């Protein structure tokens, strides 16, 4: 098997339609819609849940590739990544069931592979920085907000299930924080490049100002400060993320 594989080798059933994220966003903007689904209606929540479901699928596949792609990494690293595969596979099941709960189906919205592309970094340290801290950090933001909105809507199924997934994601962020440090010990250049990669991803997923600090009901994606802290982000890192969201161009 190739190590690593080209990002366009990601295999899917026919029922999923793959599109570039910016193309989907543009199609929506052209129709006068927000580029990223809000949480104001059951239908837009369904679209967001579908996006999370394919994200979990790609996260499972990405963690699996990390198990395969880095046979010379420390064994404990492989163990953490294998554990993440198991968690993500359960998350896929949870989100497919939540999609059913919301009267949706797999393939109802296009799949974007921006997350998978980020999971194809060639260096293990960059991959954990980008995926476990950048993308799983984003997952903490999104899930934390979704739990809050579900509670407000009076949907205990959504609230409870997503809250358990959030707990797992915090664990994955913690793994990322641990391995970013351990894999780059004594190699400041590797660490710098890994962090730079993570910041590129953070910037990308600020989604042109859609992610920002603020109340769950008013902000499209609110930054989960406390969950991020639990995952090992320092106060300085959180403050920096908030600053970058303030300078991100609006779509």
């Amino acid at each position, binding site marked *: 098997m190739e190590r690593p594989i080209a990002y366009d080798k990601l295999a899917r059933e026919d029922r999923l339609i793959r599109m570039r994220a910016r193309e989907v966003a543009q199609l929506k903007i052209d129709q006068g819609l927000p580029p990223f689904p809000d949480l104001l209606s059951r239908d837009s929540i369904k679209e967001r849940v579908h996006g999370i479901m394919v994200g979990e699928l790609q996260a499972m596949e990405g963690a699996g590739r990390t198990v395969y792609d880095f046979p010379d990494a420390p064994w404990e690293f492989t*163990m953490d990544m294998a554990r993440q595969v198991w968690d993500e596979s359960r998350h896929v099941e949870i989100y497919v069931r939540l999609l059913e709960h919301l009267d949706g189906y797999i393939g109802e919205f296009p799949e974007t592979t921006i997350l998978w592309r980020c999971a194809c970094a060639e260096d293990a340290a960059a991959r954990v920085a980008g995926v476990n801290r950048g993308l799983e950090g984003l997952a903490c933001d999104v899930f934390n907000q979704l739990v809050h909105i579900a509670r407000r809507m009076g949907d205990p199924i959504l609230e409870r299930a997503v809250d358990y997934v959030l707990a797992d994601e915090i664990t994955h962020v913690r793994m990322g924080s641990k391995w970013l440090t351990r894999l780059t010990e004594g190699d400041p250049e590797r660490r710098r490049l890994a962090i730079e990669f993570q910041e590129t991803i953070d910037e990308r997923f600020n989604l042109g100002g859609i992610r920002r600090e603020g109340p769950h009901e008013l902000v499209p994606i609110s930054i989960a400060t406390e969950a991020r802290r639990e995952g090992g982000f320092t106060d300085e890192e959180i403050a920096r993320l908030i600053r970058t969201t303030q300078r991100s161009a609006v779509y």
Partner: protein
Amino acid sequence: MTHPLAGHLEVDESAKTIRHYRYAVERMTRILGGWMALTPELSAKLLMGRHVWDNAQHADAWGKRLPELRAAAQVSEPANPRVVAFLDAVEAAERPEQTVERVVAIYRVLKPHLLATYKSHLATANAVYEPPTCRILARCIEDERRHVAAGETVLRHLLRTPELETRARACEARLWLLLEAAGGVTGAGAVTRVSAAAAFPAPSSDDAAEFIRLEQSTGTWSITPALAQALTAFGDALIAGDTSGARRWLAPDVELGPALDTRLRAAQSTRHAVVAFARVGEQRLVKLRLDGGHDGVTLLIRWAPDGSDWRIAALEAVSASAAPPAA
């Protein structure tokens, strides 16, 4: 009568056997991890996803046992070069359309063999001085039984045609020969395996039947009558080679294009079917599969409402998945 302190393996031999187990299990863990992205079918993807962690824990338990046997921790060692060749052959099934081969390799060959090997080891291990090994064997046996049963359930779902059944049998026979030539994962000679029929029903933590249900949970596409009519008319026109009839559905700035036109004509398709249906706001994305002729073609079409009618705002040929729509 056998003396209670009689044993089959010296300490060093026990460590060596464990390194051989660990080699097979570690490689299986990594292979399953790598395969998920290359496997289109959700049921098989989730099956692998559930078992990567169990397998990693087995490799870890074997690796931790080694220092207790005066050996270095977490070391894998193949029994011989033929074991390496066997696992290389397992790993080779990486094309998207080879899901059947992937599942057969792990769930009809390697795991049933590991299960039989572990059971045989447990049956002969000394109950007085080998309990630490026996505990690991018992856990691995329980998990492997569950895995084999789950794998068999998914495999039965995947084997939809006689041709796939033939491929599965051929793959199993080929890999089994390689494993026999290696003398099994320990290189010890007699190679056995436990059949799936002897395995437990899968509990809910890796319920293969549920993975299959999730794969099939596409639901009903909400296609309006006007769009359904447009889709049918467009597909019919393509199959009939009626280019002007097909163009009637294109928005003014959209072209069928000579390359696509040539490809569609060469395909000589005899039927069409919608295989995916997605929404972007008011627009609809449709994958239309044309086949039955020389070569199948899958079109990705974006339909936009145009008053009470629908028009094609974009279309392109895309590569088809190796996985047919869930039955």
